C-alpha cells in the first residue's frame, strides 16, 4: 500500500472538515443548556425532552413518514411498470418521446413541478392535504425509480422469463416468481430513493401541502425563519443519527453479502 503524502492528508482533512464541521457544530449545540443558540451554556439534554413534548413537530414528523411510505410505494409500482415498458417493448411509435417524458421531471426545476401540480389540484378542486403531497411526491420520485429499475432490467436475461413460460408459468406468475425476485434489489433501492426524496422535499411539499398537513421540512424551515431554536438542533441531530445508522448498516450488509458471494464462488470452482 502506498504511503499518504502530506498533500493528500491535508486535502483529505480539509475536504472532510468542509463537509462535516457544520453538522458537528449543530450536534454540539443541540446539547447546549442555554436558550441562545450561539452561546454555550453547559451540557444538557433538555431540548430533546422538550422536542418530545412539541406536538407540532411530532405531528409534522408523522405526516412526513406517512407521506414518504405511501408516495414511495406508489412511485415504486408506477416506476417499475414504466421501466418494464421502456426496456421490454422494444421500438414502438413515440418511444423516444415517452422515455424523454419519463426522465424530464429529473431535470425540471422543483419550483415548476410544484407550481404546476398546485394549479392542477386547484383546477380539479382537490383539497390540499396529505393526499396532494402524496400524489406530488409519487409523481416526481417515480422517475427516479424508473431510472434505477430500468438499468437493472436492461441487463436482465430474457431467457429466464422464457424458461419460466416453458415450465408452465403464466405471464403474471413468471413476473412474480422469476422477474421480480431477480430485479428486487433495484426495486428496493428505488423505493428507498423515493422514500428519501420524499422525506427531503421542501419545495414541492410547500406548494401542495394544506394548512392541516405540514411536513417536517416545512415545519423546520418555517420555525427557523422565526429564529433557530435549540429544539431544531436536537431534531436535526436525531435525523443525522438515523441517517448515519442507516448508511452504516447498509454498507456493512452489502459488504458482507459481497464477501459471502465471493466465498461461495470460490467454493463452486473448487
Amino acid at each position, binding site marked *: 500500500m502506498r504511503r499518504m503524502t502530506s498533500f493528500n492528508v491535508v486535502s483529505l482533512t480539509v475536504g472532510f472538515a468542509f463537509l462535516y464541521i457544520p453538522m458537528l457544530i449543530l450536534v454540539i449545540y443541540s446539547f447546549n443548556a442555554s436558550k441562545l443558540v450561539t452561546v454555550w451554556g453547559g451540557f444538557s439534554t433538555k431540548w430533546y425532552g422538550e422536542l418530545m413534548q412539541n406536538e407540532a413537530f411530532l405531528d409534522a414528523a408523522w405526516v412526513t413518514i406517512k407521506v414518504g411510505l405511501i408516495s414511495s410505494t406508489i412511485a415504486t409500482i408506477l416506476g417499475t411498470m414504466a421501466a418494464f415498458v421502456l426496456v421490454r417493448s422494444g421500438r414502438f411509435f413515440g418511444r423516444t418521446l415517452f422515455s424523454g417524458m419519463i426522465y424530464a421531471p429529473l431535470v425540471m426545476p422543483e419550483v415548476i413541478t410544484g407550481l404546476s401540480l398546485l394549479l392542477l389540484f386547484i383546477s380539479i378542486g382537490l383539497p390540499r392535504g396529505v393526499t396532494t403531497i402524496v400524489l406530488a411526491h409519487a409523481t416526481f420520485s417515480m422517475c427516479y425509480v424508473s431510472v434505477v429499475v430500468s438499468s437493472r432490467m436492461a441487463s436482465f436475461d430474457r431467457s*429466464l422469463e*422464457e424458461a419460466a413460460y*416453458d*415450465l408452465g408459468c403464466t405471464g403474471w406468475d413468471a413476473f412474480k416468481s422469476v422477474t421480480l*425476485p*431477480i430485479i428486487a434489489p433495484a426495486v428496493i433501492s428505488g423505493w428507498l430513493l423515493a422514500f428519501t426524496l420524499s422525506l427531503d422535499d421542501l419545495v414541492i411539499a410547500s406548494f401542495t401541502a394544506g394548512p392541516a398537513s405540514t411536513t417536517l421540512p416545512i415545519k423546520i424551515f418555517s420555525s427557523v425563519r422565526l429564529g433557530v431554536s435549540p429544539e431544531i438542533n436536537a431534531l436535526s441531530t436525531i435525523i443525522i443519527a438515523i441517517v448515519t445508522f442507516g448508511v452504516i448498516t447498509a454498507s456493512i450488509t452489502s459488504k458482507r453479502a459481497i464477501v459471502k*458471494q465471493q466465498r461461495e464462488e470460490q467454493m463452486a470452482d473448487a
Partner: protein
Amino acid sequence: MPSDHASGFAPWEDADATPLISFDGVTKQFGSFTAIDNIDLQIYPKEFFALLGPSGCGKTTLMRMLGGFEDVTEGTITIDGQNMAGIPANKRAVNMMFQSYALFPHLSVADNIAFGLKRSDMPKSEIQGRVDEMLRLVQLQKFARRKPHQISGGQRQRVALARALAKAPKLLLLDEPLGALDKKLRQETQFELMDIQEKTGTTFVIVTHDQEEAMTVASRIAVMDNGLLKQVDTPDRVYESPNSVYVADFIGDVNIITGTASEVLENTQLIWAEGATPITGMTGSRVVQGEPASFVIRPEKVSISKDEPQAANKVQGKVIDIAYLGNMSTYHVALANGVIVKSQTANNRRIARRDITWEDPVWLSWTDTAGLVLRD
C-alpha cells in the same frame, strides 16, 4: 457406444411410422427477412435430432417455433398429432434447455428442478420424489441445496437438463447445450446426454453449430443454410454422401475440384484440367452431362505415395505443406494447375520415418468410389 441406427433404429425409413413432429410448408418471416423458407420435416419419437448450420441459418428460429416462442408465418407445425398454432409455450408438452441455461439465480438447485413440477398437476407429495430422481439422473444429489452461482459450469448445465426433463416432456429442445463448456468436458457431456436420452426415451432436438457434436450425438442431422434444409440424413450419410457441395464443405474437411461432367453413368468422369486424364467419382444428385460439376473427396480417402501407384485415379503434385496433428498428418499437395488437394494419413507408428517431406514430388490416388461428383 453404438449409434441408434446401427442397432436398427430408423423410423424415418419406415413408411408406417408416425412422426412426433411434422413441419408442413413452414415459413417464418421477420419483417421482410425470411428466416425459415417453406420447410417440410418429420421427426420421429425417440430420435436425437440435430439442427446444424452456421449462425443465422434459421436453426434457432426453427427450434423456438417448436417451443412456442415464435409463431409460424405460414404452414403448420404438428406435435403428437396436434396442430400447434396458437398454443403458447406454457401449454406445450415441450421443454427447452436454454443456451445460457437460464437457471433461476434466487432458487436452489432442487427448487429450480421443482419449478415446473409445482406448476403442473403433479400432487405435492410426489414432487420431492421426482426432484430426487432427477438429481440422481444428473448426479447432483449433493448439490440440491446450493444456489446456481455456487456450482461449476458443468454442474449448471446438468441442472438445466434436469429441470427441463423433470416434467417428462414428449420433446426436449436443447439450444447449443454444450457451447459454454470446455472441450474435454463437452466430449464427456455428449455421451452423458446420449445416455440420458436413451434412459428417458425422450425425443431430443438439439441446435448446434458444432458439426462434431452433431455427428456424435445425433441419430439424424438436418444441415441448414439460409432458412433452407440442405440435407436431412444420418451422420454417416451426411458425411459420406452429401447431396451438395455446401453440405460436403460444411461437414468435415473436403477437397473440391471443379470441372465439367462427362459420361454420367453410375460413375461420372470429370474433366478438370486440359490435357489431364479425367477423374472419376460416384455420380451424386442432379449431375448433368456437359454441365459444370464438382468432385468432392475427403482427405482421408486420398492416398499419398512417392512412387506411381496402381490406382483408378491418380494425379501428380508437389507437397507444399504438412500439418502434423499427432494422431494423423495432413499433406497439402499442389497439382500442376495450382489446385491444392489434401491427403490425410493416420500416424500408425509412433516415430514414423517420414519419407515424404516439403517440396517432394508425389502421387495422389483414390478409387472410383472414394469421391462424389456433385452439381455446384
